[in-house]
């Protein structure tokens, strides 16, 4: 009918199911070509740019994998509650198990770039706000980046909202100061910070200097007191910190979201152990693309840590800011001479820096904050290493989407646009309070033995649960009002 004739009418150059030989592949090649050109140019100016190019190219790989597997961590929790589909939850667990092994290998080898997050209530609260927000935006932070790469303008609005809300949130003083507990103000004032940071002015400054800095973080390997780094990494962090919890969660997913329907379809009334194992395997392989993407992400996330760790070793630096300074780029560094340089897959802070940089350009004072002035700086977006990773994710997703003929410019309707902005703002605020998003505060944490990651997941789950309930209520209200489903 329509499908075959439409396809042959538009694409005469190749059979309908070939991946190449049509405009999409050409655009993809152009994109990758331009990124390659940019890389070569940068290296010809200064070889040390390799440090930030690593971020860019890993971003491209992530973008390809994410789009290929439609890998969205928001969906992992949201679709579980909203439509009882465990596909992404399974995918995330696969990726977690694998990344925990590759990360352990990197840690055992002495190249880890990871530092554990401090424990505190902010993790649960931030996670909850973040999880609540992503129900309404259609994707998590990384998901919104890859969907932007597919041409989804609504997702671009989400990224914009995440960027601006964070920048505003970390700089907000004035009325926000009234919401600061006195103990934070006192603790911040006692830290002896440079005057120019005005640490007792600003909600977020006092949150950091008067609350966060007094807390401690620890990995499983450290907490359990492993002396041998290999044992610590593999048994403490990977096995106990990630793999066992992952198995427990997969079993729960199987029991509550997959088993009943599976046994019914397979017409098994009295399942034995073999049947249950088959069921588990069926659940793991339901979506091959998602599982493969999970495996790929687990491997490459570990490789990125190793590559960055090795480069830090090679250049004898702890932070990219030191290298930028040696290379002659000093604008936008923090007062410590640092920039945001996590050394692994992390989203949100670089987006905050984009907005911060834009505000800075129009004269807003940004460097009198802990977040920008003391810790992360506001480098030029072209020199922002993790920023290039985010751009890489967008371009990588765009390339594979073009090749697979899944790229499509999609303008959001008003409802989607409003939800994207409101939800995106909540995600931005939640990410700053929780000190990361589903990647930095959950995925990277749990796979490196930092159990605060599971706490963040718990927070996200709670927030998402409430979000789904609210979302459903709102859909029901709309349907009742517009009489759409009346019939």
């Amino acid at each position, binding site marked *: 009918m329509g499908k075959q004739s439409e396809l042959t009418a538009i694409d005469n150059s190749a059979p309908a199911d070939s991946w190449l030989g049509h405009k999409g592949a050409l655009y993809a090649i152009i994109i990758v070509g331009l990124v390659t050109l940019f890389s070569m140019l940068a290296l010809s100016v200064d070889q040390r740019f390799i440090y930030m190019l690593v971020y860019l190219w890993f971003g491209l790989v992530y973008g390809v994998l994410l789009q290929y597997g*439609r890998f969205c961590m928001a969906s992992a929790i949201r*679709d579980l509650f909203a439509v009882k589909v465990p*596909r992404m939850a399974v995918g995330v667990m696969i990726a977690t198990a694998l990344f925990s092994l590759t990360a352990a290998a990197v840690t055992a080898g002495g190249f880890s770039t990871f530092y554990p997050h401090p424990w505190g209530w902010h993790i649960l609260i931030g996670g909850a706000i973040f999880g609540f927000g992503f129900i309404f935006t259609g994707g998590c932070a990384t998901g919104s980046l890859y969907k932007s790469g597919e041409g989804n303008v609504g997702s671009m609005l989400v990224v914009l909202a995440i960027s601006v809300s964070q920048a505003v949130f970390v700089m907000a003083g004035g009325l926000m100061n009234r919401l600061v507990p006195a103990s934070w103000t006192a603790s911040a004032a006692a830290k002896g910070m440079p005057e120019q940071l005005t640490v007792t002015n600003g909600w977020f400054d006092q949150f950091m200097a008067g609350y966060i800095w007094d807390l401690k973080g620890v990995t499983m390997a450290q907490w359990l007191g492993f002396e041998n780094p290999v044992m610590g990494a593999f048994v403490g962090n990977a096995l106990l910190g990630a793999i066992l919890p992952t198995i427990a969660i997969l079993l729960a997913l199987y029991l509550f979201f997959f088993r009943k329907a599976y046994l019914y379809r397979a017409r098994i009334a009295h399942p034995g152990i073999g049947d249950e194992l088959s069921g588990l395997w069926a659940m793991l392989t339901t979506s091959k693309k998602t599982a493969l993407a999970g495996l790929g992400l687990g491997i490459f996330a570990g490789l990125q840590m190793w590559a960055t760790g090795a480069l830090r070793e090679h250049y004898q630096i702890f932070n990219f800011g030191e290298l930028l300074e040696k290379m002659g780029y000093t604008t936008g560094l923090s007062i410590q001479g640092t920039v945001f340089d996590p050394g692994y897959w992390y989203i949100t802070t670089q987006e905050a820096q984009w907005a911060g940089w834009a505000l800075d350009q129009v004269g807003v004072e940004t460097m009198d904050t802990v977040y920008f002035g003391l810790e992360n700086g506001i480098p030029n977006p072209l020199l922002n290493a993790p920023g290039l990773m985010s751009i890489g994710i967008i371009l990588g997703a765009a390339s594979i989407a073009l090749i697979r003929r*899944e790229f499509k410019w999609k303008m*959001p309707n008003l409802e989607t646009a409003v939800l994207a902005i409101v939800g995106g703002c909540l995600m931005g605020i939640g990410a700053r309070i929780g000190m990361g998003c589903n990647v930095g505060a959950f995925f990277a944490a749990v796979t490196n033995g930092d159990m605060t990651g599971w706490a963040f997941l718990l927070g996200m789950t709670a927030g998402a649960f409430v979000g789904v309930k609210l979302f459903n209520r709102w859909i029901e209200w709309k349907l009742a009002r517009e009489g759409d489903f009346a019939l």
Partner: protein
Amino acid sequence: MAVKFEKTGDGAYTLDVTSYVCPHPQVYTKKALEKMASGDVLTLLFDNPSSGESIISMCESAGNELLDKNENSRGSFAWKIRKG
């Protein structure tokens, strides 16, 4: 553009959630199927690929049959689902 759900014939319905992103398409699909009788066929119009993944899983676990996964070259999907 509002969501449209209408009966198009005997045991045949159409749900149009074009331009909506996750989780709207999958949530509306679930609600639409709840309103239908066993054996009825739903024509689902959407253009958000991620939702498609969820809908495939939903059909599998609920025992609804995915009869057709038509996609035109402009990235719009017209799927046919028979309620189990």
